[in-house]
């Protein structure tokens, strides 16, 4: 099986709510070498770096790599573009649910360009961020 335009519009709900923790925010900011004081301090005032949404979105991506209909493999995937639209920063204690939607599939030679949108909301229904990605997936030749 391989991904095609017939999969556009397919959605995948959150695996489980993701709880934003101060420890993960510090670890993530540290991995970016970002010492902005907004990411440290007391739990009430700390916010996550804007691209922290990738941590939760990447978790949501698991669903498409596990969907046997799509035939996608992570190790044959390259990230082509990324966009974050931020409604409000993520904060310590936020419980986030994500919904992934396959919005566009285009075939280009031996690869498929797959655009996916991940909407991040709190479990209370407050929107926080939309993360839109285009992934380039190279099909396995012997499976084509």
């Amino acid at each position, binding site marked *: 099986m391989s991904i095609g335009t017939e999969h556009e519009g397919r959605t995948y709900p959150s695996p489980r709510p993701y709880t934003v923790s101060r420890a993960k925010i510090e670890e993530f900011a540290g991995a970016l070498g*970002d010492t902005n004081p*907004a990411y440290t301090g007391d739990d009430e005032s700390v916010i996550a770096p804007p691209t922290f949404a990738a941590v939760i979105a990447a978790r949501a991506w698991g669903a498409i790599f596990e969907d046997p209909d799509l035939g996608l493999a992570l190790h044959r995937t390259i990230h082509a573009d990324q966009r974050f639209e931020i409604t409000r920063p993520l904060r310590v204690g936020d419980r986030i649910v994500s919904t992934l939607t396959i919005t566009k599939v285009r075939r280009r030679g031996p690869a498929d360009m797959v655009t996916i949108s991940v909407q991040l909301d709190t479990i209370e229904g407050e929107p926080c961020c939309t993360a839109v990605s285009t992934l380039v997936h190279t099909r396995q030749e012997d499976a084509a």
Partner: protein
Amino acid sequence: MNGFDPASVAVGDELPALDLYATRAAAVRYAGASTDFNPIHWSDRSARELGLDGVIIHGMWTMGSALRVVTNWCTDPARLIDYAVRFTSPVRLPDDDEGTHVRVTARVTEIVDETATIMIDARIPAAAEGEKDTKVLGAARAHVFIGEHA
């Protein structure tokens, strides 16, 4: 505060530049922090199977690190409205301590109401004279709220 004055932001303003160094250690650290364990970031064999010369840094590391050029400038990351990039060229990770140097510059290109558009440029400087820089982020753009409260 470092003295960021939203009222004084003007089209054409250059933001203070930023130097990033993409190393294998950074990739390992980012993989753990982000939980993105794609082997093309830590296995030369996996990277070569995709036609790369060897392991590359996560595009999201470059995207997230380059954004510091904006958040260092406006001080409050909560001012960010959106941020988009294309990954135009992979950043290879030599097996050394220095890594690959990525130079990040940015400037204000438009102001509409209380929103400033920042265009960001991230490139690997040419290794030798006569060679070209390698642009690693394309069409990299952030919108920043420059009203009185963030």
